[in-house]
């Protein structure tokens, strides 16, 4: 009996040491002098495995495989299995890789590792907005400029206005001292803007602006919306409260409270380009916009007014008078072939379409046959086929002087993910040109002249690339 007891104790000890060897945490990643040790409990939830595999630098697409006992993904990544006991499996990976680092400056590593979401301080994809000032100190002038006033600070030597509209410059937005405070007028396109004042080199938010935004980078900035639209409802003068709501503000009927002006109700705001559905609420009753004939039923059966903001582009196809149906399709409508039907006009087919600023590819579909726009010399090649190219609200013209003997000149860059087929330039006089729309920020590009890549000889700014052939650099402010 005593002898038997010894065996039990020994067994317990053995089990104890084994479980210790396999580790106390079911899933763990431990670093030792020479190795990484990854331990996985295949019975743990996929979420937990996902998380530990992510820490170990193994792509999450491998989680499913690992759960099924397929460790090929780990093997490819250099992990070697060192233990497998029931559900617990352990891998080791040498740290010798850490001895190879060709970079000579910390920023060459850290700017690549620490990814930043978006661009802090540069509001993006804002659907709508309206200002909230305790005292109106920022407003539009009849000239189209926007005036920013910072009252007080009369003892200050220098005051600047800095925001995403001037690339957060600490030097450009020097304000003028007046009796009413510090003043500056700036030209702003409709949109959402973040800004701050710099008083005697110290950043402050606008004390009169109640609207602030955390830029995600640890900063709180004031927010200003440059308006582009006024909702207007005529009549209903006896109503006590009229509001407007739409898909842009998730149908919140308590947010955009309209103001009575004469015999109409109004609300001015910034509304992004694109399609919006909306309704008014008058003393608790939803109504569509009586002044807007365009209405649509939503998924819940509600009738909504429709507003389409942007640039009106008229697609026109000459000839084809014998065709029965002509459609236009492009990346603006996900290439749906039977959605945008052109109307027959005198010796041509036409359709006005409202589009937001951007670069688009499109084609006509004539009785089921896809054709490029014969009147548009700008095109791009995709899967061997020719798409016509259209830029809505273009803000930059690429020009290449000379090369008059060239057959084709193509523009490509970071704006089209370096698509070698890019956008085709047109020869005008002694230069090749194309107009495109580019968002603010840095863009790299090249021309391809009859297949040969060249940097832009008309642009002094270029940087080296991985092929040692350089890329032209363009900053859009």
């Amino acid at each position: 009996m005593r002898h038997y007891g010894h065996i039990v104790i020994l067994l317990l000890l053995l089990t104890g040491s084994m479980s210790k060897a396999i580790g106390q945490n079911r899933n763990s990643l431990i670093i030792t002098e020479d190795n990484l040790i990854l331990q996985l409990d295949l019975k743990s939830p996929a979420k937990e495995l996902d998380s530990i595999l992510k820490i170990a630098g193994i792509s999450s697409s491998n989680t499913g495989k690992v759960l099924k006992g397929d460790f090929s993904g780990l093997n490819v990544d250099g992990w070697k299995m060192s233990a497998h006991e029931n559900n617990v499996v352990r891998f080791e990976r040498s740290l010798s890789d850490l001895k190879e680092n060709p970079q000579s400056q910390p920023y060459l590593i850290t700017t690549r590792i620490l990814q930043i979401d978006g661009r802090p301080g540069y509001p993006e994809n804002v659907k709508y907005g309206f200002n909230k000032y305790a005292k109106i100190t920022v407003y539009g002038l009849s000239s189209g400029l926007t005036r920013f006033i910072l009252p007080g600070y009369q003892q200050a030597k220098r005051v600047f206005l800095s925001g995403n509209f001037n690339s957060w410059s600490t030097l450009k937005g020097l304000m003028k001292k007046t009796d009413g405070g510090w003043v500056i007028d700036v030209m702003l396109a409709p949109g959402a803007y973040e800004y701050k004042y710099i008083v005697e080199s110290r950043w402050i938010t606008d004390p009169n602006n109640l609207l602030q935004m955390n830029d995600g980078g640890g900063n709180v900035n004031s927010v200003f919306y440059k308006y582009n639209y006024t909702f207007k409802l005529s009549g209903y003068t006896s109503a006590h409260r009229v509001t407007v709501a739409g898909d842009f503000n998730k149908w919140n009927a308590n947010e955009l409270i309209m103001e009575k002006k004469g015999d109409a109700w109004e609300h001015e705001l910034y509304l992004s380009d694109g399609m919006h559905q909306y309704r008014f609420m008058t003393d608790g009753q939803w109504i569509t916009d009586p002044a807007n004939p365009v209405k649509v039923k939503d998924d819940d059966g509600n009738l909504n007014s429709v507003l389409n903001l942007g640039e009106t582009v008229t697609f026109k196809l000459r000839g084809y008078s014998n065709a029965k149906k002509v459609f236009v399709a492009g990346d603006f409508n996900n290439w749906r072939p039977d959605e945008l039907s052109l109307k027959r006009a005198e010796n041509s087919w036409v359709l006005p379409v409202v589009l937001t600023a951007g670069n688009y590819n499109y084609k006509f579909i004539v009785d089921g046959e896809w054709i490029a726009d014969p009147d548009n010399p700008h095109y791009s090649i995709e899967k061997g086929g020719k798409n016509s190219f259209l830029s809505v609200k273009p803000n930059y013209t690429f020009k290449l002087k000379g090369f008059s003997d060239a057959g084709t000149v193509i523009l490509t860059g970071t704006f089209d993910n370096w698509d070698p087929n890019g956008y085709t330039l047109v020869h005008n006089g002694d230069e090749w040109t194309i107009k495109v729309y580019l968002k603010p920020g840095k863009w790299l590009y090249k021309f391809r002249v009859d297949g040969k890549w060249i940097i832009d000889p008309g642009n002094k700014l270029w940087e080296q690339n991985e092929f040692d052939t350089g890329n032209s650099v363009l900053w859009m402010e």
Partner: protein
Amino acid sequence: MRRLYFLFLFTICFNSVSGNKRLAVADITFKNAAYDPGPDPAPYADFKTLVVPIKRAGNLIIVEATVDTLEGNFVLDTGAPYLVLNETYFRDAPRIADQDAAGINGASSGAFATVVHNFNILDLHYDRLTADVTDLSSIENGRNIKILGLLGTRLFSKFAITVDLFRNVLYIQKLDKNGNIPETERVFRDRFMVSPIRFLNDVVFLKGSVNNKEFWFAFDTAAETNLLDYDKCKKLMDNMEVINRAKVTGVGGSSFEVIYARFDQLIVGDRMFMKNRVLLTDLEKMGKAYGYGVDGILGYDFFVRGIFTINFVKKEFEMYIYTNQ
């Protein structure tokens, strides 16, 4: 002359990587012996304390300055000995010095030395500054901000600089005859850490320890994290917790691995710092760029712990708590 003195002193104290007189900026090592333009004239500074608003790009500290009429963003970089200009915008600047044909990583580079005139940071004016021109596109592309250059330490060699990352302000201060910030000009008083510093090739070095093992750290404000040399800290791995393992694509498209880890017990000066994040990698090439072997680099994860002052004359590094002003 000053550089020679440092070289002599620290060849004894440290194991110099290059062994001869070379300077390195960005990924380029310069054969500086071939050309020495002499020291730049002292800047004109009509202030006791100059307050400069700063910006942030990721964890980088951005200061706006003007080069002649061109104004733009510069990265405050205590890991660079002097002014560095971005090749994209200064390719046509006059070349005053030969340089190695290739960067450290073997990739060809058009880097060269130049001189700029009329350089200003608000009221701080430099008539003439020697600068290197090199490719800084990786910062621009990684942070989506236009970068004209890097502000290296020699620009501030007569001053103390203080960085308040909470309020995004840089203070550049003149010093009294003892090398101190005059009492009336002191902005921060609640000091929680002080350490002597050494300059090697004008790069700031701090002595510290990790889990009782002594290290020499480069203090580099352009390093967005701390870095430790894997070989030098191998024995300390038991105290490291892995945050993640990452593949990095370097200049020229080559791929290499780093491990991002966390550890307690970093001592710098008279202070212990807990929960330190650090990249484990090989720092041999970075040591070459600094001109000296480096065990580790203290970057953002370190300097974000407090308002920090570098007194370039007294050779002192201080930290102040954020809540005090």
